[in-house]
């Protein structure tokens, strides 16, 4: 949770975050990673590969709306 707090502080518009909000962001991030990995794997399977590759992430970003915010971050 300490790293989450560090990241939150990066935002110049954030004054202070409650302990509960930091906790929620941390937990949400775990769920996000889980979701992202699963979705990437779906692409891997569709292409009949055994190894998940970076291009699978790029495909997820392109195809799924909720991951669109990651567009351009995979360089």
């Amino acid at each position, binding site marked *: 949770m300490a790293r989450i707090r560090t990241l939150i502080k990066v935002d110049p518009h954030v004054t202070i975050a409650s302990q509960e909000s930091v906790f929620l962001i941390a937990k949400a991030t775990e*769920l996000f990673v889980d979701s992202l990995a699963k979705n990437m794997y779906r692409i891997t399977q569709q292409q009949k590969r055994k190894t998940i590759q*970076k291009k699978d992430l790029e495909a997820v970003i392109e195809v799924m709306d909720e991951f669109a915010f990651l567009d351009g971050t995979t360089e």
Partner: protein
Amino acid sequence: MAEKPEDLNLPNSVIGRIIKEALPDGVIISKESRSAISKAASVFVLYCTSCANNFALQQKRKTLKDTDVIAALEDMEFEEFVPLLKDYLETYKTEQKNKKSATEKRKKAKEALENSLDNLNEQESEDVEMKEVDKSEDEVIDADGPQELDAHKTDN
């Protein structure tokens, strides 16, 4: 204030564990993708924070609250996370409350013990004073004793 890139990454061990648990056994993930996922997670935190903060500011608050984060996730189209997160939050709040009362109980027990010790010390020093008083009374009696005898002798 320059931040090193490493400082903004989430712990690799945690990211690695979550990925492993998300995927069936035997699935291989390239190092590059693992790295990309980690970076995506950091971007998620920043984006979520920013969104949540907007909700807080809308309500003229400076403190980011749990409700802001929930609202942000719904806005970001991650509403499927919300029910599970609400459960996690309840558990977390209960744990924090229990921790707090446990700390208060320990503090009170410690204070009570210190008070007893203080009382015990006071009692001991009173006992010592009492003994000293008794001793000086004995000395006074001894001083008088011989004088009386002498007086008696003189009379005869």
